[in-house]
């Protein structure tokens, strides 16, 4: 069997695919956070709960109302987006003039309440959501087996990310969004209804989270804490990419998912070992680094990268210093 740095090629591609899937979720979720932070100046800690709500609404729709996957993919983000609009209108709106911390606390509190309610109603064990029939099965690529649904998740995420990027960076509506991020007061004095724009932006950011939740439902176990497990990593992604940068969050999301996959395959640790193990002194200095990038430690890889990026570029890879 072909091996690359002691890793069977099938295993490597398998891990890369998992990395790509995770990266797609990181990208969609951190994109939503970036848009919300840009315009509202609020660190939306409820993002994980809203992702979970998206997945759960899809499951509830299918179980009790017979709503199929494709409808859920549209309706669930819409419904969660509406709850976002209500939250913005009734609560977040009062916090814009205050420090970031207040928005963070409010949304964190909301996340705890929402998760608590779902836990109370549906328990902690989780529900399973079947893969839609059209996307069941997979394709044999020769070097690996590619489940169709996973390919769909990657494609759908990338399309949503790049359409969002295009609208923000290239369209008239996007020029309002960018201007609103920079100097909302002046934009409003020009006649743009900035408060409405802020409300809809929060709704859209939240809907993106729910969209990711529906995409995730057939892959992961649908349970009340699925969001809080993921969101911590997503915040690390946002910090690495640079708060508020659109392209930064997409590229960093996918990139870190892939890096995580490569680390999980063991290739990085093997590579470091092959280069440095025989070198006296340096080998023992590199040893702890090798441990940090070993498959067993892959869960902390992103946080190690975050620490390094923060040391070298405090504003993040794509962020501008303010």
């Amino acid at each position, binding site marked *: 069997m072909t091996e690359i740095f002691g890793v069977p090629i099938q295993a490597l591609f398998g891990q890369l695919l998992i990395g790509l899937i995770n990266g797609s979720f990181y990208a969609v979720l951190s994109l939503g956070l970036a848009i919300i932070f840009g315009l509202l100046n609020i660190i939306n800690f409820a993002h994980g709960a809203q992702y979970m709500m998206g997945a759960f609404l899809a499951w509830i729709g299918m179980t009790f109302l017979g709503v199929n996957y494709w409808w859920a993919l549209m309706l669930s983000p819409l419904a969660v987006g509406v709850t976002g609009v209500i939250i913005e209108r009734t609560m977040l709106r009062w916090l814009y003039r205050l420090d970031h911390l207040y928005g963070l606390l409010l949304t964190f509190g909301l996340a705890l309440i929402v998760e608590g309610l779902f836990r109370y109603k549906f328990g902690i064990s989780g529900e399973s959501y079947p893969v839609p029939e059209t996307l069941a099965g997979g394709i044999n690529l020769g070097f690996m087996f590619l489940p169709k649904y996973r390919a769909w998740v990657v494609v759908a995420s990338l399309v949503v990310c790049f359409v969002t990027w295009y609208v923000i960076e290239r369209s008239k509506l996007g*020029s309002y969004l*960018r*201007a609103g991020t920079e100097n909302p007061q002046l934009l*409003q*004095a*020009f*006649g*743009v209804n900035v408060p409405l724009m802020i409300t809809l932006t929060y709704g859209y950011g939240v809907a993106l989270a729910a969209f990711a939740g529906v995409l995730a439902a057939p892959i992961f176990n649908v349970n009340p804490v699925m969001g809080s497990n993921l969101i911590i990593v997503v915040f690390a992604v946002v910090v690495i990419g640079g708060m508020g940068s659109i392209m930064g969050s997409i590229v960093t999301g996918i990139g870190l998912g892939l890096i995580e996959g490569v680390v999980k395959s063991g290739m990085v640790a093997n590579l470091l070992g092959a280069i440095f193990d025989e070198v006296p002194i340096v080998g023992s200095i590199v040893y702890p680094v090798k441990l940090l990038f070993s498959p067993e430690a892959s869960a902390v890889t992103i946080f190690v990268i975050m620490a390094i990026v923060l040391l070298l570029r405090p504003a993040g890879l794509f962020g501008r210093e303010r």
Partner: protein
Amino acid sequence: MPSAAAEYLRVTDLHAFYGESHILHGVDFTVNRGEVVTLLGRNGAGRTTTLRAILGLVGSRSGSIMVNGVEAIHLPPHRIAYLGIGYCPEERGIYASLTCEENLLLPPVVRSGGMSLDEIYQMFPNLKERRSSQGTRLSGGEQQMLAVARILRTGAQLLLLDEISEGLAPVIVQALARMVRMLKDKGYTIIMVEQNFRFAAPLADRHYIMERGKVVEEIPAPQLESRMDMLHEYLGV
């Protein structure tokens, strides 16, 4: 007495606050259609705040602001723009995340009859040349041109220009003076806040002097020379 029809803006007993601080203490003045009026005064007299209060960009405000016969005191800022007001802020407000042309096209059209993009490029050829540059990469003079040009597209008839000559080279200040004169000929109504009295004096029909959040004097242009002493006292020049 100017007739009510010729009156474009009437500000009566305008008070404005930023949080706890009371900045304007009952400002009164009027601007007639087609007039160029300046607000003169020392720093901190409340001239910029007066413009911002007209637009609804202060913490809170009271009194009356009649724009073209419509009461604006209770309207949110985005509705006030649609009464036909264009604003060029002191710090120019050019957006760094937008190109020159995106900046130019940013303000929504609030009335028909604004200048077309072609007309604006004819008037400011530099902006055409630099249309795809990042807004804040433009020179100071170009940014000032852009800040004014973008409100000419919207059809706004009342222009609030805050310190447009500030910090610019004399040759650019001269170009701006020509521009203001041309806008006046086109029938625009203009309120200028100016520190540069030599720039403003030959352009304006009337001058209002502000002190401590109030209008304290009105000087029509023909009386300017005879009242220079008083003016100097107020401005401390």
